[in-house]
């Protein structure tokens, strides 16, 4: 950043291309200059450390310079900061004397002056690794998560009867290795609640619980799963998990007003999940629904993933290099969101330097950045093209007439003394025409989705002081590498391409149009094994509370290794073989014996051997997320409005009884309820929510109008029962799907003595209880 700010005023040679030097000059550099730099300068000014933001180990680096500007001016030693620094006699004292250990001998100073006089030659091959990369792709491709996946034979286990699904054998084999027995199956009351919360995020009706508990048919449980998977509320539950990854919001940056309705994307995700759209297609549509042959206009809503990307303020009064930095920040955020969501890779690190841990080069990074630089966020109608053309034409006509009306009104105002009736008539005529156009255009008010279009962005100087943004429709561009992430110092232009490590030979070019369809194709073909592993693991984590890989968006070197690698590979491979079907995956997981275990077994040795339950010797107890918690309260109070889809509404409005996924999400200001309960920051990709337990949350539970209102309504609902005991029983059935114990009944009756508490207080205590918040 330092270098960027400085390059505003001292743009000397900033964009000069690296050029070849004569053999003699390079020999001079190697024999005289490099040893000197290594000995005197590189300790603080090379790849390891950059004191004052300065690197000297590469031509691009020293031309970019550090905090005080470019380190040298090729051919002009006296003007070069480096020379001033080693002389240590800057009259203003601005430039620190270098090196700090003391002044260099005169002959060494002479060498450096001669070097700069010759134009500061530096061999290209070692020019700070900007042109080439030291990444060993052959070695890199050997990493576990880049391997192909294939279905694996189930490992042998001693217990032959426990497993019901392939996943079980992998789990059991590991448990047996450590001498552990899995937990017994959960009782049916527990199981039915678990299934409801997992799949639809709502508690079962007491009648549903009893029906399932009484149903002794062998296929009662698979049928329950089928029923839940076909519920429209299933999509609401699982869409919210997806929306965390893609930093969905209803209200983004107010400085770039958009006419789009972001909720169309949210609704598209809900529908896609309900329809079990194959995951590979689900991915492709989010990049390029408008470019795919086999999609409907309504599918353009899928483009909201990138269409709702955060936009950073571009102050056009500033220098274009500053604005390029802002644009580069936007690319970084989008690349981060894409790579983390779909690949579980941390590609954004490679913006400034090759990835330190994973085989991802800066070259690869800018290969993808070019796709984003060729794509513009744009509002899109969800209509066939011919109808879009009609709306656009009608709207432009209306805009035109409205402008004319405004002009006429201005003129009338200016001529107050002489109000000409004919102007007034003109206005009325125009207004009639507008009304007619609107009436004749049935799609006139059709909502637009936050989407994308093909256009490349060019950030250009606009006179000496200002910057302009120029979009070129349907013109893709490749972008140049930015040395150390500095858009003022450019390396070579990089053809758009996919990550090299995920190709078998040359990386896949991303060249059709902007390349976003190619990019999506690459994610689910070249990268299919990785993409499938990442997705399968996310789903597993939602079902179990922990992932097979506990860093769900980092499957690289820095990420965790899978607890059950063969299980993950097998599940991923069969997920692909089964048409990337999410519903297949739910069944595969939920019908397993592993999933159906109890979450608590007294005295189980697993507590000692594996306290974190990484081996799944029992089910994990999980806390409801904020959506499921609020939705459950509304359900048991009898308040829940089960309407699907549509515009968002603020959650703080107490008569808003819709599911929490339809609550307004603002990027600038999160709703109190969401903010207090681990809702992720909608400006960045969230790999998973980290559940926290804070006193501020409990203040909400104790004192918020939401809890109070639901308690009041629930208390009223209970009054339909005759007698206090029956009311308490009803409450337990609604909230917990069970009957109270005699002790709990007694507690309730004591609390409700006429001189003591009332039903509202009692109802709130139940809503606030741990049993209501946790799922066994």
């Amino acid at each position, binding site marked *: *950043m*330092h270098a*960027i*700010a400085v390059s505003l*005023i001292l743009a000397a040679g900033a964009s000069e291309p690296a050029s070849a030097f004569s053999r003699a000059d390079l020999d001079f550099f190697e024999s005289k200059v490099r040893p000197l730099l290594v000995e005197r300068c590189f300790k603080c000014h090379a790849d390891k450390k950059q004191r004052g*933001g300065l690197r000297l180990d590469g031509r691009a680096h020293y031309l970019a310079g550090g*905090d005080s500007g470019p380190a040298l001016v090729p051919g002009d030693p006296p003007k070069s900061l480096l020379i001033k620094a080693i002389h240590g006699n800057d009259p203003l004292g*601005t430039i620190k004397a270098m090196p700090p250990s003391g002044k260099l001998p005169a002959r060494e100073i002479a060498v450096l002056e001669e070097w700069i006089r010759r134009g500061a030659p530096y061999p290209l091959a070692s020019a700070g690794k900007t042109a080439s990369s030291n990444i060993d792709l052959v070695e890199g491709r050997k990493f576990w998560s880049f391997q192909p996946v294939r279905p694996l034979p189930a490992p042998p286990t001693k217990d032959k009867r426990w497993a019901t699904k392939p996943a079980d054998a992998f789990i059991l084999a590991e448990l047996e290795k450590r001498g552990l027995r899995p937990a017994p199956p959960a009782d049916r009351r527990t199981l039915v609640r678990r299934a409801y919360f997992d799949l639809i995020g709502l508690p079962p009706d007491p009648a549903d619980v009893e029906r399932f508990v009484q149903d002794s048919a062998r296929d009662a449980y698979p049928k329950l799963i089928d029923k839940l998977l076909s519920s429209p509320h299933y999509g609401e539950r699982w869409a919210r998990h997806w929306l965390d990854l893609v930093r969905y919001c209803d209200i983004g940056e107010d400085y770039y007003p958009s006419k789009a309705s972001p909720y169309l994307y949210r609704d598209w995700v809900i529908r896609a999940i309900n329809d079990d759209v194959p995951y590979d297609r689900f991915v492709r549509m989010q990049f390029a629904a408008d470019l795919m042959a086999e999609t409907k206009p309504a599918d353009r809503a899928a483009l909201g993933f990138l269409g709702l990307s*955060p936009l*950073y303020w571009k102050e056009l*009064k*500033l220098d274009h290099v500053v604005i390029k930095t802002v644009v580069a*920040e936007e690319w970084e*955020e989008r690349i981060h969101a894409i790579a*983390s969501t779909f690949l579980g890779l*941390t590609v954004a*690190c490679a913006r400034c330097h090759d990835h330190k841990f994973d085989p991802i080069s800066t070259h690869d990074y800018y290969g993808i950045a070019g796709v984003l630089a060729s794509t513009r966020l744009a509002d899109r109608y969800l209509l066939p093209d011919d109808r879009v053309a009609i709306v656009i034409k009608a709207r432009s006509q209306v805009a035109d007439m409205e402008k004319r009306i405004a002009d006429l009104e201005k003129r009338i105002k200016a001529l107050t003394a002489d109000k000409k009736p004919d102007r007034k008539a003109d206005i009325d005529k125009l207004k009639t025409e507008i009304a007619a156009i609107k009436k004749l255009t049935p799609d006139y008010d059709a909502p637009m989705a936050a989407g994308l279009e093909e256009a490349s962005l060019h950030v250009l100087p606009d006179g000496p*002081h200002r910057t302009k943004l120029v979009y070129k429709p349907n013109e893709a561009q490749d972008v140049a590498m930015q040395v150390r992430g500095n858009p003022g110092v450019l390396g070579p232009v990089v053809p758009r391409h996919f990550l090299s490590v995920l190709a078998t030979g040359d990386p896949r070019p991303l060249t059709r149009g902007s390349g976003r369809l190619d990019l999506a194709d690459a994610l689910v073909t070249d990268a299919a094994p990785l993409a499938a592993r990442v997705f399968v693991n996310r789903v597993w984590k939602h079902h179990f*509370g922990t992932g097979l890989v*506990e860093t769900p968006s980092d499957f690289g070197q*820095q*990420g965790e290794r899978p607890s059950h690698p063969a299980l993950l590979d097998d599940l991923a491979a069969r997920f692909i073989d089964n048409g990337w079907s999410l519903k297949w995956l739910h069944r595969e997981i939920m019908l397993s014996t592993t999933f159906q275990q109890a*979450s*608590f077994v007294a005295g189980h040795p697993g507590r000692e051997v594996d306290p974190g339950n990484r081996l799944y010797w029992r089910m994990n*107890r999980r*806390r409801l997320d904020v959506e499921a918690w609020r939705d459950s309260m509304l359900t048991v109070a009898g308040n829940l409005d089960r309407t699907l889809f549509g515009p968002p509404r603020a959650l703080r409005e107490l008569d808003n009884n819709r599911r929490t996924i339809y609550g307004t999400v603002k990027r*600038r*200001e999160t709703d109190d309820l969401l*903010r207090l309960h*681990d809702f992720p*920051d909608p*400006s960045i990709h969230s790999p*998973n929510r*980290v*559940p*926290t*337990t*804070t*006193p*501020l*949350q*409990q*203040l*909400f*539970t*104790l*004192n918020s109008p939401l809890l*109070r209102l639901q308690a009041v309504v629930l208390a009223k609902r209970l009054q339909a029962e005759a007698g206090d005991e029956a009311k308490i029983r009803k409450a337990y059935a609604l909230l917990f799907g069970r009957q109270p*114990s005699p*002790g709990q009944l007694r*507690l309730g009756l004591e609390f409700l003595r006429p001189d003591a*508490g009332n039903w509202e*207080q009692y109802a*709130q*205590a*139940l809503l*606030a209880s*741990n*049993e209501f918040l*946790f799922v066994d």
Partner: protein
Amino acid sequence: MIHTLSRRQMIKALGGGLGALGLGAVLNPPNADAATHHRPRARRIIQLFMNGGPFAPDLLDPKPAINRFAGQRPAAVQLRTENETGGLMPVPFRFQPAGRCGIPVSELLPNFARCIDDVCVIRSLHTDNPNHGPALFLMNNGSITPTRPTMGAWLSYGLGTENVDLPAYVVLCPGRPVRFAELWSSGFLPAEHQGTYINHTNLDPQRMIPFLRNSNLTLEQQRRQLTLMQRLNEDHQAERGVDAALEARIRAMETAYRMQLAGTDAFDINREPARIRAEYGTTHFANGCLLARRLAERGVRLVQVYYGNGQPWDTHRNHNAQTRDLCRDIDQPMAALLTDLKRRGLLDDTLVIWGGEFGRTSTSESGDGRDHNHWGFTYWLAGGGVRGGITHGATDDFGFRAIHDRVHVHDLHATILHLMGLDHERLTYRYAGRDFRLTDVHGHVVREVLS
């Protein structure tokens, strides 16, 4: 056993998902040293944020050359800022050496001048971008975008809270600063670390803290309800064995109950004696300073006091008159805060920070205004571990660009963390495969300002 581990080790050991469970009661060591890298010099911070950006040569960085070359544009001021500016605009305010140290302080700050011996004036701050948004982000989270955890979130994550009955990071503003909640976001850190924003325009504590009190139940009624709830919870847990998550919520519920009283007390400045109220004054900023002291005293790690709604220090027009008003507003409360902290022995381990997101130009904008200036501006620090009565760094002759001992915002952050006992290179959080820091890959502790 738990207390021998720091919060961070604990979080690592338990893995992200479980790490934050124990929150308040379990993981917050009552003695924060357990989590520090070295002996802290300050335990808490009060940051007075002059949103909009003040002009130092009016206040603490006198530059007679501005008046001498009034109307001219010497080469040194040919620097790009947000808007085009004209010639040097004279400073009408006089300076007097103050305190034993003799640091010149503007006539605009007569009360503050009496505290100068406790204050370290850094005249060589600089930042990266002359736009409010990016500069506010950089000052708060070390980057020009809203995607990183803010300093307060880092402190809460690194040190926890000293008082489990109060949030660790509180943001006070009589209104809403520009960019609002993004300025105290926890970014990718667990959500518990975000700042708790409080609009103190209305001084009723129940208006300030959301859901602090129940409007419907008396405390006795609520205690009864809570007892019922906890009996049910104990029942529930007894059937399920040891479970840290269940226990944590039971404890947090009790804490919340106590907080209704503690919070009411902490946020109620009407409980201050009239004498103290009079010392601070009656403006919103004065109330903010007094609230900040009450919170700091009770163990809140970072209290940020934004001067006002929007960006009041953004004087693009009518700069001198506005500055006069703004200074009249801040002078008495700032002095009262420092005096009050000192009298209570709190200044020794409370760090007070003052400054904006950037400074302003010594050249004029639209005749009588000043533009944003990110090239050089002034911050002052006082209290915990800071050398009082000194200046550090210098801007050029016109107060435009920091030239001597330049202190980047990253350096300021490194220094603040250092004073709090944290090494800015070791306070990290693994996200997206990278160990992130407040200072990214930058930052040097400014040792010269340490006592």
